[in-house]
């Protein structure tokens, strides 16, 4: 068996434009370091994140998913994140109920000034997901069979 390359997870972070995306930019400005495997998708508001995006991410091969927005009360659009909170309180539980490991999905409030929190969250999620290994649950079938065939 060939020596396996150490597992690098693919993590997607849906970040609202006004708080978390700004916080992530600030982390850059401050030259903070976090793992390369966290990729930000910019959305106007965490309320824009349709829970179905999360399913799609797991299906297509993401090993971890984050949804980040402004703290409740600070939403640029005043109430968007209150809906986010309800949606993902329910969705997170539903995902876990369906067998997705709790550590693979995280929702977090990160403000535009909380660069360190963004860095820490990215590092923490990355580390957890790395420990769990590649996600196979909800993965697209054809690709799994393909890689399985390629492996044998």
């Amino acid at each position: 068996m060939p020596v396996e390359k150490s597992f690098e997870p693919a993590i997607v972070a849906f970040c609202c434009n006004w708080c978390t995306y700004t916080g992530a930019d600030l982390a850059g400005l401050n030259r903070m370091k976090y793992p390369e495997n966290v990729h930000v998708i910019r959305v106007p508001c965490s309320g824009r994140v349709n829970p179905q995006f999360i399913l799609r991410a797991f299906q297509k091969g993401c090993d971890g998913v984050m949804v980040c927005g402004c703290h409740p009360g600070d939403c640029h659009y005043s109430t968007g994140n209150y809906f986010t909170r309800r949606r993902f309180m329910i969705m997170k539980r539903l995902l876990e109920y369906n067998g997705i490991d709790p550590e693979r999905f995280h929702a977090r409030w990160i403000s535009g000034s909380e660069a360190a929190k963004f860095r820490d969250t990215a590092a923490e999620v990355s580390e957890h997901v790395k420990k769990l290994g590649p996600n196979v649950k909800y993965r697209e079938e054809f690709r799994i069979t393909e890689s399985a065939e390629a492996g044998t």
Partner: protein
Amino acid sequence: MSEKQEKMRQCAEKLLRDGEAGYVIGWGETRFDDRTTPIFVEDPAGAGAFVWNEYAINSLAKYLLDDKYPDKKIGLFTRGCESRAINRLLKDNQIKRENVYLIGVPCDGKKSDRCTLCRERNPILYDVLLWTPEDDPPPAAGRFDRVKDIEAMSPDERYVYWGETYDSCIRCYACRNVCPACNCRECYADMSKTGFQGKQHSRSDNQIFGVTRAFHVGDRCIECGECERVCPMNLPIMGQTQKILKDINELTGEYECGMDATSENYLGRFDLDDKDEFM
């Protein structure tokens, strides 16, 4: 039994004869004694086709969506479960109350697994009540029992449980088509081009259908159990929606859908003091 059946036929006949309703939806017989099928009677003379027995199981409310803009009222035999479904449709702005004539028929329980969770035998909404209300069944202990059973499993066990369940799903969408909470003009699952739902029959896509549908109806489910009754593969579909209901109950207290036509759905509103786990 036959006395009630007679009342139903008389009521339907009168409605049709007086022109109060364009047609009446009820149950009619099939070639098997232990099965009925929904029938739609327009002719007063045909009212004799309605039957009322322990096999009058199918919920009729969803048929109202086939005829959302009727010229005359639609008569509908309405039990507890139908009435909650109608509240669902009213709340979702899918039908107009003045377009239906609800003939209340308190239910005596049917020979169906879907009735085991029933808590309202009597219609909570009707225009006429044909006979005295029945006693509601004792509060179903363990409304969420099976959800608890699944919650007790490990994540991997849960994945296997649902994975195997969805392996046998044939994606016939009977669950969706019978569900009063599934009242979209067009289901997201019928629009594979939008990218949310693949058409392929794979565990992954089946699971995504299951979870997405649960999320779409979870805070709106009236727990009528029709989805499970119609499933040709006997899948525990309500095990998903009830999970959401259970969580909502735990997060904000007593939550039940279809008890009125105005309460906002859980995910359609928020509370500043909602529990927060995302700090």
